[in-house]
């Protein structure tokens, strides 16, 4: 009968567990074996652990209540063909990054559209907008052939110049004070120059959306397409 040399409460039960599991070696194994030899409770614990492990290993397998084989309908749903397979790929782990990409592109697109919609927005932001317009006006005043067609626009003859002509016409009088006074051409020149300054983009003769606008629309379109594809793919996978 083993003699107890120290109280059982001071013994580490996990040491006994590790010994029962065969996970100890060397000095630790010797220490655990000595503990078992000296403590009846540790010895009982060791034997109980082995008995529980044997019983666990011998647990009978529970019987299944149904057949888990797949039907053709299951297979078609789980592995779609053609365009459905392409869309379903967006819901898979390989293309999981498309969610973040779609959100990012959509956000960028919306932000870009908001920027382009701001009144007085140009590629160089804020009050500096007037200065480039003035510089362009000075440059264009030297080119009479460029000013003449613009003068015709200022009088509303072009269909797309309505918006441009109104601020141009409104500024015709102040423009006359600013520009060089030179007879009849003054009004025209002055009217045309602010118009050109005001409408750096989108004149009737050369309407061209800004790169920012184009890029924003493209980014928004791609972002929404990715999110939509992913959403449809997940619905197909869960259906």
């Amino acid at each position, binding site marked *: 009968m083993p003699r107890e040399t120290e109280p059982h409460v001071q013994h580490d*039960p*996990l040491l006994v*567990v*590790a010994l*029962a*599991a065969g*996970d100890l070696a060397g000095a630790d194994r010797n220490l655990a074996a000595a503990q078992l030899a000296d403590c009846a409770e540790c010895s009982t*614990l060791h*034997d*109980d*652990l082995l*008995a*529980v*492990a*044997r*019983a*666990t*290993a011998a*647990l*009978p*397998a*529970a*019987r*299944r*209540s*149904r*057949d*888990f*084989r*797949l039907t*053709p309908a*299951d*297979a078609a749903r*789980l*592995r779609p063909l053609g365009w459905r397979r392409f869309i379903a790929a967006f819901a898979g782990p390989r293309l999981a990054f498309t969610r973040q990409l779609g959100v990012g592109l959509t956000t960028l697109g919306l932000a870009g559209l908001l920027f382009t919609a701001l009144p007085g927005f140009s590629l160089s932001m804020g009050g500096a907008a007037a200065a480039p317009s003035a510089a362009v006006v000075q440059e264009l005043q030297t080119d009479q052939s460029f000013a003449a067609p613009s003068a015709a626009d200022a009088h509303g003859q072009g269909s797309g110049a309505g918006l441009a002509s109104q601020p141009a016409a409104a500024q015709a009088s102040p423009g006359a004070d600013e520009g060089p006074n030179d007879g009849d051409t003054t009004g025209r020149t002055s009217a045309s120059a602010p118009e050109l300054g005001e409408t750096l983009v989108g004149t009737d003769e050369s309407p061209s959306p800004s790169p920012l606008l184009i890029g924003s629309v493209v980014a928004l379109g791609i972002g929404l397409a990715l999110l939509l594809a992913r959403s449809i793919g997940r619905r197909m*996978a869960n259906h």
Partner: protein
Amino acid sequence: MEDLRSTTVADDPVQRRDLILLERARAGDLDAFNDLVECYQDQLFALVVRMVPDRDQASDVTQEAFFSAFRNLHNFRGGSVKSWLNRIAVNAAMDIQRARKRRPVQPYPELEDESWQPPAPADADPVHTALTWERTTSLNAALAAITNDQRVAIVLFDVEGYDYAEIADMTGVSLGTVKSRIHRGRLALRDLLSDRMELFRG
């Protein structure tokens, strides 16, 4: 198509059979995949039901594991098909366990129902059968009472026969964590069964 047989141990006939079936399943042969299901559905269900105390949920988890395996046939990169299926089933069961933490239910309600246990042989000693039934019931109740992590580790180690490294790979934790879970789980089981240890010592 990648030839899986050249990348794995080819000496085991069971492994060769599994790889051939899996290759055919990859090529679109549903019957080949269902042959794999027939080979492993009993073992997979027995594994899952130890981890998910609710029998109906265990059936759902097992079915979902086979669905996932079918969807991800192209992701199999060699090795043991059995281990691959077990890994999928363990992950599915652990997902359900995490969800159940928020909605605890009575564990093992079917312990009172003998119909889902294998029947005793006709010539079995009735006393021995009754003791076995009592021991099984007590042990199942104790397994349901320990933590999910400990139960998964003990079931994979003691019941399924996987080693520490395989369990670490399946559950995504370190070797030391697996050992710790098994040791603490066994200690907890013993404490829970302390008043019925005579059933196990005999």
